[in-house]
């Protein structure tokens, strides 16, 4: 029962992150939203592994944590090297 409450909390967290990704006034705001979204997804996969009883999903969480770090670092490098100079805000 408490696991379904956990799932509800994580879905609410995903919706709040999507709100920030859609709303964020600048590119780094959206990247912060995407980074937190990937962390929430890693937690979600772990909770689903507990619910379904399959250990193999923990490996999926490992791979997703790796890929999320690479994505955030790539976005940070892109922003530091100039970002999108055609969009002056």
């Amino acid at each position, binding site marked *: 029962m408490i696991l379904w409450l956990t799932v509800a909390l994580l879905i609410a967290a995903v919706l709040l992150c999507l709100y920030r990704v859609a709303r964020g006034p600048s590119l780094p*705001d959206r990247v912060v939203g995407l*980074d937190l979204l990937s962390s929430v997804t890693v937690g979600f996969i*772990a909770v689903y592994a507990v619910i379904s009883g399959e250990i193999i999903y923990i490996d999926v969480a490992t791979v997703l944590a790796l890929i999320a770090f690479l994505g955030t670092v790539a976005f940070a490098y892109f922003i530091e090297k100039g970002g999108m100079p055609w969009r002056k805000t």
Partner: protein
Amino acid sequence: MAQNISALLIFLGALFMFIAALGVARMPDLFTRMHSSTKSATLGVGLIMLGAAFHFGEIGMTMRVIAIIVFVLLTAPVAAHMLGRAAYFAGVPLWEGTLSDALRGHYDRRTHRLISDEKVEENLPEGDVAV
């Protein structure tokens, strides 16, 4: 007993993640949003993974969980630091209620070097935001 500990840890982790997402959605500024998101998300992932390890209770599972927690603890501050540094160079505006900006004038915005003892003049005007 182990099931109760597992459920409690997973619920606490999800609660921390919800608080992090709430801060990301509600905070007024990029840097306060990062302050809210990175630490709480790291703690939330760690707690959920510990709860999963308590639930399964196998040695291979526990090893994978420890690997994920160590990896997240190592990489989350690095990613947050790179993103905050890049956003500061890009000129993301601070909140209008900000009292002090300790880095102001200490970064050369052309060469991205940190000068600690003497101030350099701002090379870019304030409104030149390219993000």
